[in-house]
């Protein structure tokens, strides 16, 4: 879709799920002593967490379905058959790349051009998958399948201070998957009798969504620097590179993380070079940069 689905959001993880949990029956159970029924006793935590993912992504679902439908409509118009459209949504599950294929083929472009455009657009999932790698469990097949639920929105929604919440990602990703594929089916079935989502302003919903997810992350100077640099790179490259390249190139902005963390005590590494990646093996999991306040765990 013109957007993808991301979320990071403390705004979600903090406000949506929490408030949701406070009011939902399941959550009140979680706060009351021992739950009476066995199912909730064994699955309480996981369930509330998957549910947190589902709830977090709920506000997006109408837009996702609408864009899925518009993909279905446009794909028909571009000569991609109904079955092929459905297969594409089920396998690629990434709106921007799917729209890119439709627009290239629809404009009479070559198959190769369509493939290159889509792969460039989806290349961002490489670094995103790497960042979230440790939330996936089990053998290669299970990882391969679960990783397919990784889309911008589920990735961002489940990101908390650089850690990813497995259940939020899978819950949100699964809901997005259902919405996207259902939308595609609606679009394929309905043809162009559907309204253009742009008329409803839905295309403006995605940048606003990403901004809302970005805002709570901007607590350290390095993350502010990375955000500004990322946006600047993307905007600067938009007029001169094929679609997809600007966003991938923007990932280079995270290299500002290589600058020396500010929280290192002055005396600790008096002689350390400023630009060095700080190879202190001792504190692998300790992020020196995390001088941020600890998040109240939800």
């Amino acid at each position, binding site marked *: 879709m013109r957007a993808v689905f991301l979320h990071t959001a403390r705004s979600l993880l903090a406000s949506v799920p929490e408030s949701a949990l406070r009011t939902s029956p399941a959550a009140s159970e979680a706060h009351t002593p021992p739950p009476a029924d066995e199912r909730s006793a064994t699955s309480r935590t996981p369930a509330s967490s998957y549910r947190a993912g589902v709830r977090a992504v709920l506000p997006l679902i109408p837009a996702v379905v609408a864009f899925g439908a518009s993909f279905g409509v446009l794909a028909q118009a571009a000569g991609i058959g109904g079955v092929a459209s459905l297969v594409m949504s089920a396998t*690629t599950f990434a709106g921007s790349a799917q729209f890119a294929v439709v627009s290239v083929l629809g404009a009479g472009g070559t198959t190769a051009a369509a493939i290159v455009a*889509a792969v460039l657009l989806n290349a961002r999932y490489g670094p995103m998958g790497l960042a979230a790698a440790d939330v996936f469990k089990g053998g290669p097949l299970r990882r391969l399948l679960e990783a397919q639920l990784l889309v911008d929105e589920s990735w961002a929604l489940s990101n908390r*201070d650089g850690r990813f919440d497995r259940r939020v990602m899978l819950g949100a990703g699964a809901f997005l998957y259902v919405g996207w594929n259902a939308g595609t089916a609606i679009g394929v079935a309905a043809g162009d009798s559907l309204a253009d989502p742009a008329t409803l302003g839905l295309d403006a919903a995605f940048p606003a969504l990403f901004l809302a997810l970005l805002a709570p992350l901007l607590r350290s100077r390095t993350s502010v620097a990375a955000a500004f640099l990322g946006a600047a790179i993307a905007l600067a490259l938009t*007029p001169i590179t094929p679609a997809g390249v600007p966003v991938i190139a923007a990932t280079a902005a995270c290299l500002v993380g290589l600058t020396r963390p500010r929280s290192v005590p002055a005396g600790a590494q008096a002689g350390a070079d400023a630009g060095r990646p700080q190879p202190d093996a001792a504190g692998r999991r300790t992020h020196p940069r995390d001088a941020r306040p600890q998040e109240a765990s939800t």
Partner: protein
Amino acid sequence: MTAAWTAVLVVGAATIAIKAAGPILAGERQLPTGVSRVLDLLAPALLAALVATQAFASDESLVLDERGAGLLAGAVAVLLKAPLLVVILVAAVTAAGLRAIS
């Protein structure tokens, strides 16, 4: 095989592989501090790039249109700490309203 099917299958297979690469290859191995510090900044960098391109890019040009206005309205909602749903609605309604009157 038609061109469309070729594109669909190749893009599908490539996307599946791209998404799975990190989770399969990196596994539960802990990344060195330097690497994870860099990856931690991926979220702000990537989100900001998505905000920028989805609001201001149209194919390969930069444009200022109703999406930009929607984003601005959404930004105000974000500053006011509105819930996500409200942020999205404010942006969408702003863009839709401007399109309706233009």
